[in-house]
């Protein structure tokens, strides 16, 4: 009995703000509710929100593609850079300063990170183009061209998130027993061999863990794209199709266009994608013989 009492606060909030809303989401996704009229009066439209999104809504399809590119790019390029930085600063002097430098962007609100980099990317006043001009190269439309906008945002996302990944890699590196390196060195191994045959294989659980958690959160990216690209899409300087990610699409659909039914259907599609992705990754991990992920 005491067990239920101790769990009751958690369960209460959990039911009201997690489980019930998920059920309500499914219901809303079958209606044409506009958030203003009472939900009870919203018309039941069956699967039409889903079929519209998946077959006729170019912007939603574009947002799925952009989010896929964003997720794969930021997670895997970010991990490669983070591994390099982790190897660089593991065992290095002055690690407190290092931790601060790479972690400052992680604790900075993403909307502020977006502001900082929005300034750096600014076509006329931004440092990046001023530097390009100073060395005689043509300035670029970093955030408003169809080709560069998404990669520019991804570069910022990698800059902002690399510190967190580095910390996890350093934790993984410290778990590798020193004897392995000692034994390899007696056998005459060079640093490159050590990395390839000891460090990388033994870091595999860390890499896989970072892939799963990284991809799940990258599919939901909102703050950075909102702060760096929404202004451009609204003023027409950035083609919306180039930067629209799923979360931004759902936000504008629900809370600006007030199409709650359609947005909720989109959220459920997003859930299915993330869920499927996680299942696939978990299966790959188990095949890799990693009991830790059972």
């Amino acid at each position, binding site marked *: 009995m*005491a*067990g239920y*009492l*101790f*769990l009751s*606060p*958690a*369960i209460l*909030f959990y039911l*009201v*703000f*997690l489980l*019930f*809303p*998920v059920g*309500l*989401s499914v219901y809303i996704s079958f209606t044409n509710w506009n958030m203003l009229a009472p939900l009870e009066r919203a018309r039941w439209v069956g699967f039409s929100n889903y079929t519209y999104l998946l077959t006729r809504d170019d912007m939603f399809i574009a947002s799925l593609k952009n989010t896929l590119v964003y997720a794969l790019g930021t997670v895997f390029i970010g991990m490669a850079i983070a591994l390099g930085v982790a190897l*660089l*600063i593991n065992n290095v002097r002055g690690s407190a300063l*290092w*931790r601060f*430098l790479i972690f*400052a*962007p992680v*604790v*900075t*609100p993403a*909307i*502020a990170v977006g*502001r*900082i*980099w929005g*300034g750096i990317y600014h076509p006329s*006043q931004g*440092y990046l183009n001023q530097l390009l001009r*100073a060395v005689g190269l043509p300035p670029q439309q970093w955030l408003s061209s169809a080709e560069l906008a998404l990669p520019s945002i991804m570069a910022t996302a990698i*800059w902002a998130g690399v*510190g*967190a990944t580095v910390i*996890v890699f350093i*934790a993984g590196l410290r778990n590798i027993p020193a004897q392995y390196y*000692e034994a390899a*060195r007696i056998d005459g191994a060079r*640093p490159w061999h050590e990395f390839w045959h000891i460090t990388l294989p033994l870091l595999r659980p860390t890499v896989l863990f*970072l892939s799963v*958690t*990284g991809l799940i959160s990258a599919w*939901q990216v*909102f703050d950075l794209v*909102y*702060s760096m690209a929404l202004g451009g899409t609204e003023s027409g300087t950035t083609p919306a199709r180039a930067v629209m990610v799923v*979360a931004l699409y759902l*936000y504008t659909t*629900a*809370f600006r266009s007030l199409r*709650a039914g359609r*947005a909720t259907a989109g*959220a459920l599609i*997003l*859930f299915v994608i993330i869920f499927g992705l996680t299942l696939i990754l978990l299966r790959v991990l188990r095949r890799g013989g990693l009991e830790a992920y059972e």
Partner: protein
Amino acid sequence: MSSRDAGPAASRRRPPWLAVVGTLRFVVTLAVAAAMFLPFFWMFSSSLMTYQESIRVPPVWWPEVPQWHHYLEVLRDPRVPLGLYFKNSVIVSSAVTLLVLVTSSMAGYALTKLDFPGRDAIFRLFLATMMFPAFLFLVPVYYILKRMPLMGGNDILGLGGTGALQSHLALILPFAVSAWGIFLMRQFMMSVPDELVDAARIDGASELSIWSRIMLPLTRPALATIAIFTFIGQWNYLLWPLIVTTSAQHLATVPVGIRMMATAYSTALNAGKLQAATVMAIVPTIVLFLTMQRHYIRGFALTGFK
């Protein structure tokens, strides 16, 4: 790597390529450090520049005469109430942190030291929700808050008024439970010996006092990690406050405030003031991180991600 070279190999002559690798490593380290640091430096230095300096080619790194008055002008500007943003952020982040600590540690205690049917199933259900994207909740939670009975002019059926939407509760209640917090507390409480709890029970202690007098003090490191992690996470959270404050601007938190400041200072001539406002908005999180970084970094090492 260099510290490990003190083995038998070190007694031999160092091969020359090792010096090249060492130099290369130093250069790369310096480049990474610059890449992490320069954007912040640029934000700060451009907050002190005149408009003319901020657009000069080649770029100016440091203003001739720092325009410190940008900071004072932002603080005095009624269009960007920084004090209000801070107050809202402190209220919301503290309340969420406190609630998460209470719900997580109580649930952690029940899930490890108390026996009842369905215990493991409930835990697995909590864990499963970590995979739900936030967007699944936004629309229905907005609706639920609006229909809160007897709040914001609502009647007993939750009709007629604005519900909880016009108060801080709208920003606090949906985040009172954290699956991650419950998971972490359960992990920590499993390492507390059952004998300790049983001995206290035999001495006649109630479950509530075992939880508060034995478990809470013993799990203080975990509580600190959850607290700092939750606080900074809430402080930086944009999406939900953005939605709620569209109809309740007096609830704007710091991230929403940064967004509003961009509108207030949208003309190029105000670039310096906008940068000054952004600097002031991010200093508290950085300071908080600096003082609590041990706990914060452990949160990352334990879970990998926000």
